[in-house]
């Protein structure tokens, strides 16, 4: 558990994390806080009050120009033409075989301008892929990942925390901001982009802010603690929160060889829009039927499922656990598994936990859903 690796990247908030007493680990080449107090306490804080996450390791790519919409349509699976300025959508970059290069959020900032948020570990791969397909389009693609810090403010009191530090002129915009939309707003004195999105299953916001504003905004958010109950939250609870909400984690739940139809995000695939990379493969897969799919599972017996464990169905190996953990809010243990497509809700599975087969049940996704999001 070394945190002195010179080649590791640091977010602008690294020193703040150390000052908060964070346990720091390396994650995808970044030194990130895994927890400040305890994963379970931080998880609970987000479900009941509010937490702030430093997610500055995430990447941002801007696509601008007369053919921006046509280009985003070409490289992503969701229908970006449906987006009005200020709206965003979950989507993915696919390869020709329909495999997911990355999942991402596409925001439309203007008629000819899109802002795409990508996963930290895929920053270089995505930018290279996007650039390599941009040549025949009249657009400009910029990797803005180093310019932006990103903070996620998540939980039932997140609006309260945000209202306390946002410019009064922008309050009504924030209060009216619909789910997945994005707006410019002055937060703690500087212009930022605020999106109503998140990775926890709670009501919340993701703030894109200039990297040199990160410390000021971080401290301002923590300064609302007496009213909002906000606490800093590390990657440990980020993972248990997203798992209960059944949000996919790239590299664990899916990769370049997994199609969105298999990964349970077919709702974000628009096969009726004009051609896009990977469409042909998905049309074919849809016609032939998928061989595997993601399901949620809950353990009936003792034991915690973990990534890579074999899953048995009707006595035969039928897949593997993609993500597993204790489920702090739901109770017990569970997760997600990629299994044979014949598996249906309420089926009994067995998870091979270090050589012992433990019973689990297939349950409806998500494992947890908030009353309001």
């Amino acid at each position, binding site marked *: *558990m070394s945190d002195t690796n010179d080649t590791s990247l640091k977010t602008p908030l690294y020193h703040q994390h150390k000052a908060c007493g964070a*346990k720091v680990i390396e994650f995808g080449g970044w030194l990130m806080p*895994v*927890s400040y107090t*305890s*994963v*379970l306490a931080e998880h609970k804080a987000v479900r009941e009050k509010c937490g702030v996450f430093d997610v500055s390791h995430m990447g941002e790519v801007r696509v601008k120009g007369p053919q921006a919409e046509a280009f985003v349509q070409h490289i992503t699976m969701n229908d970006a033409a449906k987006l009005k300025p200020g709206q965003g959508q979950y989507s993915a970059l696919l390869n020709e075989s329909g495999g997911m290069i990355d999942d991402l959020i596409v925001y439309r900032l203007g008629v000819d301008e899109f802002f795409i948020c990508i996963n930290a570990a895929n920053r270089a791969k995505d930018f290279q892929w996007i650039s390599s397909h941009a040549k025949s389009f009249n657009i400009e693609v910029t990797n803005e990942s180093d310019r932006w810090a990103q903070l996620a403010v998540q939980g039932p009191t997140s609006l309260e925390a945000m209202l306390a530090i946002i410019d009064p002129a922008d309050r009504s915009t924030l209060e009216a901001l619909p789910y997945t939309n994005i707006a410019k707003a002055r937060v703690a004195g500087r212009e930022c982009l605020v999106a109503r999105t998140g990775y926890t299953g709670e009501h919340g916001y993701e703030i894109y802010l200039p990297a040199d504003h990160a410390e000021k905004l971080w401290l301002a958010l923590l300064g609302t603690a007496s009213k909002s109950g906000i606490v800093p939250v590390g990657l*440990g609870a980020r*993972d*248990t929160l997203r798992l209960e909400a059944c949000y996919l984690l790239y590299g664990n739940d899916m990769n370049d060889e997994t199609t969105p139809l298999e990964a349970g995000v077919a709702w974000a695939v628009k096969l009726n829009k004009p051609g896009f990379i990977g469409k042909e493969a998905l049309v074919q897969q849809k016609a032939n039927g998928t061989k595997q799919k993601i399901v949620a599972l809950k353990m009936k017996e*003792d*034991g*915690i499922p*973990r990534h890579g464990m074999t899953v048995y169905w009707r006595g035969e190996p039928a897949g593997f656990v993609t993500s597993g*953990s*204790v489920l*702090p809010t739901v109770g017990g*243990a569970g997760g997600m598994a990629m299994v044979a497509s014949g598996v249906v809700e309420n089926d009994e599975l067995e998870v091979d936990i*270090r050589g012992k087969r433990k019973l689990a049940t297939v349950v409806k996704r998500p494992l947890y859903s908030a009353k309001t999001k």
Partner: protein
Amino acid sequence: MNFPSEFKYTKDHEWVSSADSKIGVTAYAIEQLGDIVHIELPEVGKELKHGASFGTIESTKTVSDLYMPVSGKIIAVNQAVLKSPESLQMDPYKNGWLIQISPVGEATGLMSAKDYETFVAGH
């Protein structure tokens, strides 16, 4: 951090009591692991050699093996920590013992509390 002087310690962060041959994990290990959410321990009667895995301790993020500090036969398993693994965080020593053994042969390669403290300070 507290490392009782009446125990001996391993590099894998187990402690063993020479008085009653109870075995557990140290406060340092608990701090490194974070929230303890699951523990697996062997059946009473099982015989295990020095260095063999006698179970696992699991935090929200990781699973770690537990290793026998000495060879011996399991004569008791702490059912209370199996039921509430989080209790280890409050007390990894007195009520937080994991197994009790009937030792076979001499214990070798164990550290005193003072040596163990120096060992973890170097991490």
